[in-house]
Every structure is written in structure tokens, then in C-alpha cells.
């Protein structure tokens, strides 16, 4: 086994050269994102530093309420991110994204903690937090893709949707095609990830161990389980999101509320 090459803070500072490349490209091409590059570089630095301390704090205390608080913060940030990506400016999108992400994550985590990883105590932060993070991130993407695609298809197909309603179709029947297209758009990235995992990008859980020089069969097994978990989280999140958007888009009397498109 080879040695472990330690990084000093100086090494990290030197790596800013790489962000410099991004900065130069954006300046030369006048992309107008110069400030974003600065902010992004600083936020990466500060957020990862902070999260390092926070994680260490939560790991050391190992109290269920600190773990749940941490997960709650992650879920709120994910819901906000998904909601701001939803182009509809109507109220309710935060509630939809939040409910869908929580549903996907809770179903997945409860199943896994009960049946697969069976960690004791159930809130063991070293395992629960990183795995939840991966599931939350992926579910968030599935939810935001599902809602925005579903809404935009409903906008494009508005005439057909209302034609179906006028024929006596229920709101579920009239929106069925856009609903399927939305869910499919939400799930395709996850399907692709299942197809190419390990071939193009090594998943984070394994990369860490490889770099630390301790890659184990355990890490591989964990990674396989995590991949199946993100599939489940995306499926539940996408379904719940689509159902909630559909409920928002129609009245009880099967009328399209076009102001929500």
C-alpha cells in the first residue's frame, strides 16, 4: 500500500490557480460571471471548512438531536435550492419541493436503516449524515427536474389538456402525458448514474478511501447500497413532487389553474 500524501494549507492556497483559470476564461469571454467566480471560490472554502468543524462536533457528541438538526438543515437548503430552480413564481413551490424531498429521503433512509445497514444507534452520525447527504442531493435534483418539466409540458400542452378536460377527462387523465414526461425527466439522470457508475466517475464514498489508501470491499458494498438508495429517493421524490404539482395545477372541479403554469 502506498503512502498517504498529506495536503498542507499552502497546497490548498496554491490550488487557487485552478480557479484563476476559470476567472481568466470568464473575463476573456466576457461572460459577466466574474463576481460569481470569486463568491464561489470563497464559499467553497468557507463552507467546507465550517462543515468540517460542524461534522466533527456532531460526531464527537453523537446525540440524536444534533444529528436530526443537521439533517433538517440539509433538507431545508435542498428544498430551497429545488424551489428556486422551479421557474414558476407562485407560492407553494417551497412546500412542494420540501415535501417531496422529505418523502423521498425518509422512505429511503428508514428502509435502509431498518433492513440493510442496521446501524446502532440508528442515528450514528458517521454513517447517517454522509449517506443522507447523498440521497438528499440526488432527490433534490430529481424533484426540481420533475417539477419544472411537468409545469413546462403543461404549458406547452395547455390546449390539449383543456381539450381533454372539455371532453370530460379528470384532471389526472388530462395531465397524464405531461405527468409522465415530468417524472421521466426527473429520473433519467439517476438512471444514467446507475448505468455508468464507476466507469466514468468514481463515487465519493470510494474515492475518499482510495485516496486514503484504505479501499475496502466494505466501501464497495456501501457504494452499491448507496446507488440503490439514490434510485429509491429519486423515485419517491419525483412521484410526490409530480402529484403535488398536479394538485396545485387543478381545482377540485377539474379546472386548469393556468396562473400556476
Amino acid at each position: 500500500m502506498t503512502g498517504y500524501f498529506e495536503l498542507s494549507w499552502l497546497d490548498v492556497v496554491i490550488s487557487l490557480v485552478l480557479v484563476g483559470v476559470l476567472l481568466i476564461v470568464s473575463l476573456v469571454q466576457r461572460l459577466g460571471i466574474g463576481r460569481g467566480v470569486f463568491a464561489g471560490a470563497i464559499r467553497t472554502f468557507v463552507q467546507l471548512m465550517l462543515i468540517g468543524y460542524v461534522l466533527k462536533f456532531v460526531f464527537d457528541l453523537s446525540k440524536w438531536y444534533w444529528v436530526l438538526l443537521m439533517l433538517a438543515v440539509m433538507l431545508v437548503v435542498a428544498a430551497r435550492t429545488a424551489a428556486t430552480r422551479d421557474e414558476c413564481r407562485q407560492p407553494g413551490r417551497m412546500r412542494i419541493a420540501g415535501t417531496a424531498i422529505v418523502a423521498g429521503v425518509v422512505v429511503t433512509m428508514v428502509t435502509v436503516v431498518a433492513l440493510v445497514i442496521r446501524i446502532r444507534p440508528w442515528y450514528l452520525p458517521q454513517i447517517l449524515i454522509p449517506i443522507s447527504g447523498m440521497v438528499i442531493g440526488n432527490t433534490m435534483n430529481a424533484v426540481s427536474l420533475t417539477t419544472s418539466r411537468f409545469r413546462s409540458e403543461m404549458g406547452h400542452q395547455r390546449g390539449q389538456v383543456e381539450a381533454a378536460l372539455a371532453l370530460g377527462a379528470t384532471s389526472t387523465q388530462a395531465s397524464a402525458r405531461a405527468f409522465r414526461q415530468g417524472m421521466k425527466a426527473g429520473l433519467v439522470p439517476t438512471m444514467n448514474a446507475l448505468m455508468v457508475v464507476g466507469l466514468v466517475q468514481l463515487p465519493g464514498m470510494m474515492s475518499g478511501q482510495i485516496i486514503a489508501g484504505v479501499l475496502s470491499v466494505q466501501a464497495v458494498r456501501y457504494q452499491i447500497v448507496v446507488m440503490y438508495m439514490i434510485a429509491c429517493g429519486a423515485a419517491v421524490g419525483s412521484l410526490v413532487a409530480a402529484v403535488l404539482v398536479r394538485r396545485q395545477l387543478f381545482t377540485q372541479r377539474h379546472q386548469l389553474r393556468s396562473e400556476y403554469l
Partner: protein
Amino acid sequence: MTKPKLATERVTLTRTRYGADGSPPEPVLCDVSLEVAAGEVFGIIGPSGAGKTSLLRLLNGLETPDRGRILLDGEDISGLDTIDVRRRVGMVFQTPALFPGTVGENVGYALEIADVPGATREAKGLVCLDRAGLSDDFWSRDALELSQGEQQRVAIARALAAEPEVLLLDEPTSALDPSAAARIVDLVGSLRRDLGMTIVFVTHLMEQARRICDRALVLVEGRGVEEGEVAALFDAPSSEFTRLFIQGRLDGGRR
């Protein structure tokens, strides 16, 4: 008039206008009353923007009025099942709004919605096509590749699938050339004659209204200005607006 088939009692509809962010809702329809007798062709005429489409949407239940009642066979539709109302009151839109796929799939979908069992759908669908003046050959053709006139017939065939008692037609000829338009007008006449359907026909063309409507409502800026026998409307309009409108001086414009 005996009990009307379909009627509105002082319906009012307000909504925020397109693209008018933050502006207060404006009335689109204001105290509109009308009575459509069973088996007649009832016209709704008026310039564009008058609220004709909005009125049809209320009659089909796609929107709910803020005030006023809509009566189908004397019953307030707000107390009826919306799906049921839409099956009884079919609607054909200004643009055909066909689904991607074949003509058969379009009509078949409407039959499925109307709970017609799969085995009998094609036979029933061909009857609907025939009533809309399309031969059996159209069944397997791509709906979106047909001419505008043919597409509008498919839309009519689709609306006939649920065997509605009333058919609402929103300017069905506005996208058609004159000869295709004339044939749609003939088709409307035959639906009434052969099937005894009650028809509400929206148009902004006076000639058309005169040819096929028994009675009509003149709608201007969301208000009904005159309702009566078409012949009387044309020969002795009681409102100044109707007089100008039938002379073609206001066609498409606003006061």
C-alpha cells in the same frame, strides 16, 4: 319559451388579464343572461375580445363564474358533477387542439374518457367520424398532418364521442378558407337536423350567424346587448351597436 335546455342567469366572470402583473382583476363578463332552447342553433356574436370564448368556457365548466348561475335542463351546474356536465355539454375550440397520434387515437381517447369499452370503440368512433363528415379512411391517418378543415372535423368527431346533448362551437371556421368554412357550417346544420343536437355557435361573422342560427346573443365588452331571433336582430336591431356591427363597421374592433 318552454324550459330552456341551457341558460345563464346574470353570470359575471373576473380575472387578471394576460401579462398584466399585479393589476386588479377586470370583469371579462358582466351580468350575461341567455336562454338556449332544445334543438336550436344559438349564436353568440360580437367582436373579438368581447368575451365569447370565456362564456363558452363557463358553459362547459372549464371556469366557474364569480356570480350568477348556469342552468342545464333547469339545474344549476354548480350542484352537478363537473365531469358529467362536460359529457353532456361538449365543446370544440377555436383551434382544434388535437392530440399527437392518429385520428383513431384522438377519437378513441374521447371514447375511452366517455367509458366506452375498448371492443366497441372503433365501430363507435367510425360513426362519430361519419357524423363529422369524414370517411373511414381517416381513422388511421396522422391527425396533425390533416388540413385545418379536416382537423376541425376530427375535433368535432371527438366531441361527439361522449354523445353530448349540447355542442359548443367556438368560431370553428376562423382558421379555414371560405369553402372549408362553408362545409363546416353545413355540418353544423346537419348535426342539428339529424341528431337533434342543441348547438351554441360562436362567430364574429354576421353572414354565418344569419345562415345557421335561429336566435343569437350579441356580446360587447363582456355585456349582452341584445338577444333574439336572428332575423329580427338583423332587420330591426334595437341597439346602436348591433346596427353598426351587422353593417360590418365594427367587425373585430372595439368601441
